């Protein structure tokens, strides 16, 4: 066992983990953060995307021990004071989900995308979501939701 200290969604956790534990399993099974999901075995789908020190990563492809001393934000940590995050709100308004399985990862990657490039073109939105697969929507409304949030920010 290896002792790790990880801040998750603003809360500090100290836990003993087996070194082989994947970050996504630590989040789900040790911390009960089941909002982050696993969709594949190959690190292709992006459903498990979280932020590590503010940048998106696939939490199925990071060991929990690699997050020691770092900060993780999951889909469960982005709403504030009972209000949905603007990206969550936009996914809701634009009907950017059907079954919803890809949604936690899609939203976390979309937030990273706008942090990196606040005014993306449609092509840049699609490229920025390249590592997130959706089997239902055909992506169109997802792209609309991200563009809507970018537009709101631009207008501020």
């Amino acid at each position, binding site marked *: 066992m290896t002792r790790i200290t990880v801040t998750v969604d603003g809360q500090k956790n100290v836990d003993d983990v087996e*070194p082989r534990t994947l970050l996504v399993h630590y989040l789900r099974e040790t911390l009960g953060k089941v909002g982050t999901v696993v969709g594949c075995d190959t*690190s292709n789908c*992006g459903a498990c995307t979280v932020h590590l020190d503010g940048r998106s990563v696939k939490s199925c492809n990071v060991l929990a021990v690699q997050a020691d001393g770092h900060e993780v934000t999951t889909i469960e940590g982005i709403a504030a004071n009972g209000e949905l995050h603007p990206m969550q709100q936009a996914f809701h308004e634009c009907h950017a989900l059907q079954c919803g399985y890809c949604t936690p990862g899609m939203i976390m990657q979309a937030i990273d995308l706008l942090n990196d490039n606040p005014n993306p073109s449609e092509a840049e939105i699609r490229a920025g979501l390249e590592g997130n697969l959706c089997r239902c929507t055909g992506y169109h409304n997802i792209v609309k939701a991200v563009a809507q949030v970018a537009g709101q920010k631009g207008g501020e």
Partner: protein
Amino acid sequence: MIPAAFDYVAPTTVADALAALAEGGDEAKVLAGGQSLLPILRMRLNAPETVIDLGKIEELRGISEDGDTLVIGAMTTYADLLASDLVTEHAALLRAAIAEVADPQIRHRGTIGGALVHADPAGDVGAPVLALDADLVITGPGGERTVAASDFFEDLFTTAVGEDELLTSIRIPKHTGWGAAYEKFVRVAHQWSIVAVAATVKVADGQIAEAKIGLTNMGSTPLRAASVEAALAGGSTDAAAVAAASASAADGTNPPSDLNGDADYRKHLATVLTRRAVLAAVGS
């Protein structure tokens, strides 16, 4: 899937990492960004007894200048390279290729050193590093040695880095003012290169003064298209001249045949992508 159990160490210096490697012998494995190694461990294609995480070694990260050379720490991530003005200015070809690797999440974790030591022939980092005539600095129990990129890649997934050694930095001669383009051919988003061509070109007085061309996935290692480079040098930048020079891009290559295409298809692709990459690099 979950990796088999292993012992984990996270040294904070290169010296401590080398000591851990010496102790672990061939049952130890180095972990960089983990974007190739963790999938391998999860599929249980490998089950090391000890994993040595380089993530806490600050001296292996960062991009600096040493006279006419750019020095990149092995643990520098793709995202750090993409954000670097030094890389954009002096090694535009590296930037162009790295922008095509995988997806943003993987580029936040994956490192240049990990990609080079992993040495997947379809990986996008080898060809630009080879084309830019980089030197690779390898550190082992006996100290440091430097290997030219042309001697670094030995075979599929095999490099000059020994089991008791680490790749510590990449030294790239500055190619300031050279045009650059990476043409990666894929069928779907987020795919490994079927073939890709890395081209960097120095234009002077409207002529091609010098051109360097690297090929991805045209053999068991990254390759240089030497005959194209020779044909371009001193020649015109116009489309017909570039197309004629590019016709020999597949000479001496030995590309794989697989579900994405057979060897002849890849040889044809190499000529087309070389033409496109050179024309993009000269800006026409």
